[in-house]
């Protein structure tokens, strides 16, 4: 793995989908989300603050997540994000979309 993909290299909307999926299990602060993405992807997806926070703001704007201040593991003030009902619905939709997209890409790669 020569280069770590920055989210701008991802398909548009993928980062939001990944965040929604991450939040589906538990509420989490921004740093936690980035950590979780890295762990689960085994260091393939390293999300920087310059793409993570705009994505979170977009999700807030669309009303798919909610944010609340709480205490972090080391007892500092941190903002926790939580999936809303609309966000949960959106996650399902986006997942289907994504699966279709991946299928399509596979087909293209295998036939061309």
């Amino acid at each position: 793995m020569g280069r770590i993909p920055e989210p701008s290299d991802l398909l548009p909307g993928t980062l939001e989908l990944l965040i929604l999926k991450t939040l589906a299990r538990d509420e989490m602060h921004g740093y936690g989300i980035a950590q979780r993405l890295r762990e689960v992807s085994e260091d393939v997806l390293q999300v920087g603050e310059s793409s993570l926070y705009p994505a979170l703001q977009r999700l807030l704007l669309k009303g798919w997540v909610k944010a609340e201040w709480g205490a972090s593991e080391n007892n500092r003030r941190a903002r926790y994000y939580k999936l809303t009902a609309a966000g949960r619905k959106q996650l399902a939709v986006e997942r289907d979309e994504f699966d279709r997209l991946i299928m399509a890409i596979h087909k293209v790669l295998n036939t061309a």
Partner: protein
Amino acid sequence: MLRRVWYLLNKRQLEADLAEEIEFHRSMTTAREFGSAALARNQARDVWIWPWLQDIAQDVRFAVRLLVKDRRFTLAAVVALALGIGANTTAFTFVNGALLRDLPLANPDRLVGIRTIDTRGRPLGVSYADVRDWRAAARTLSHVVVSLEFAINVAEDSLPAQRYNGSFISFDAFNMVGRAPILGRAFLPDDDRAGAPRVAIIAHTMWQNRYGGDPSVIGRTVRVNDVPTTIIGVMPAEFHFPWGTEVWVPVGQTAGPPNTMDARRGNRTVITVAFARLADGVTRAQAQAEMDAITSRLARDFPATNEGISVALDPIENAYWGGEFGLRQMFLVVMGAVAFVLLIACVNVANLLLARAVHRSREIAIRSSLGATRGRIVRQLFVESVLLAAIAGSVGFVLSVYGVKAFASALVRVAVGGPPPFWMNFSMDGRVYAFLAVVCLATSILFGLAPALHISKTNNDVLKDGGRGGSSGIRARRWTGALMVSQLALTVVLLAGAGLMLRSFLAVYQAGRVLDSSDMITMRLALSAQKYAQPAQIKQFFRQLDERLAAERAFSAVTVASDVPMMTLTNSLRQLTIDGRAPVPNENPPTVAYLYIGPRYFETMRLRLIRGREFTEHDGAPGREAAIVNHRFASMFFPDADPIGQRIRLANAAAPTAPQPWFTIVGIAPTVPQMVFSKAPEPVVYVSLRGEPNPHRFASIIARAEGDRAAIVSRLREEVRKVDPDLPGYYVLTMDELLAISRWPQRIFASVFALLAFIALLLASVGLYAVTAHGVTQRTQEIGIRVALGARSPQVVWLFVRRTFVQLLLGLAVGLAGAIAVGRLLTQYLVRTAPADPVALGLVSALLIVVATTASVWPARRAARVDPVVALRYE
């Protein structure tokens, strides 16, 4: 959208949250990223607002480019809308001043006017005795104030005598309206009783103009109607309560003879008015209930004078805006008319946009095939409309500033011989600006909506080679047709309004032409009650004055009369009884205008009697009472008989005890409009000054003289001074000015309506022209084929004009129905013109047909000249 707004409202808090959050993130990260925290913060923040603003900015940029590119369209649309918006803002400024703005009095919504009405609902004045009882009894009213408007002559040795508008008023009137003198003191209860030392408070205008703002005016003693009176106070500027008062005198000092405030309970002269302030926490209905109870008690106690009398409490605004001229209604009618103009302008611009839409369908189709949603396209079109309306709004605003200035000065000029009406404030305030903004936005929706919906529905067929979007063209034409019909209908209504108003103006103008008004000047005199207590003294004064004036060579003709034409007020009306005719039971006797005139009256007026003779020096002696009636009187009361030799008797409701001799009719004079704002020629009875049994203390001099007006006026004043040195003349007006004043409601209305109708007609014809011209361009190919197949030019022209005729007929039908309805609303302002006047409506229809035909035949003729070869190649 809502979240964005929420974001904007809580911007600071949310940005702080974001900064703290990113800080937290950084402190947790072990492998530090490069780049500033501020940048990360900005990127995250911009999600909220940036794309949105960017889109809007893009739309605006595009719209500006489009407006600049299509300059002719922009100019036409801006001019049309600016006229409409300007007219509406102007009219609203007046409606705002008259209906929405508070009167410049403290808590005006707690103030009421008290009217007395008889059993038939006719208004009477209030009686001073009643007011004193109301004042003593009413618990629901904190103040009850009476005011008697009166002409006050102020004389002193060092300055020439001058006449002012005066009020005999209750001491607490200033307290009631929450104003206090800026100099000296207010009236005290002790000032307001008979026998108190005479005091007066003067207005700021008088203080400045007569005394040059000298503070030592307090304590000065002047003769107010010949009574030595001390000036004790000066009121602030622009205060002339109730209407145009410049000198206030406590009413209690003047009660009882020989002064003017008549304390008899039955005396309800129209010029006595009462106002009150509601006590705290009391509603007008509660106060009305209490007043009803008090009124019925007074009716029991004083059946002779108070039976059948009831009172009504009105909002005080009625006393200022609801009165004789009905300015409030007038402004509302004009407001309605200008709304029509704006509607027409909107329809026009909508039509222009629709015509352009056909050209733009390709652009829109490309946009939508590139992924623009319908909402996105509608938004872009909406931004264009709003931009257009905003430009037109700014131009319209500038227009309205001038409009307000011109109209307000015309209104204020009407106040004769007093300060300008202090309650008329037609400056523009926040409400006017808000109205302007709302009108701009509403207009942009109104004219932009139909084209936007139409365009956004365009399908992508237009992209096909040679495609013309046929179905879209037909839909556009349907919209255009409907818009054209409504525009024509609205124009008919405005034209009809203008026609009715012009007819009324001409009627008033025609009536005034009986008089040869050139070189005629008039001056009013008000004799003091002190010096002229007896009728004989009054008659003596006028005889002396008349003799002096007649001997003066400067005047080619001169006379005195109780009133001048067009300025006679209702207190000169008399109830008529005709000898030998029994009064109709249960009906009030007919009223006629009544004048007493000096010798040479008809000579000075240059009126020749139609029949009979003028007064001789024997007329008027007891037993030889003679009267001259006007032609209107003769045709009203003696349609089949000769009035000459008939006997009439005239009763004065204000002075029921005055003697009523029988007058014998000796002559018939031409009809001259006599009453203020007279609508129909009224019956007039003239008697000679000598024969008048009970003359009041007012009279006018009417003179004819060539030359400098100032010199003539000072000559007149000098002659008056020689008879009575303390008597000033006022209301100095030429007959031409009197005529202008008498015509002003019709003149203003007619010119406003004519102007609006002209704008409407212009807009409608420009609209017709543009639509037809556009149709010709669109159908060039088709015309080419028709011509190639042998169609001749009239047939081609007819192809286009036919549509116009159908629209015109529909528009006329709808418009005339509307015009008749609107004519009914205007009845109040019409003079000798029916609301559905066939002449006016016929002329209006003819005018519209001619203009509309011209506007559509003209561009259609271009179609007839199309060369089929060129046309078929045309693309």
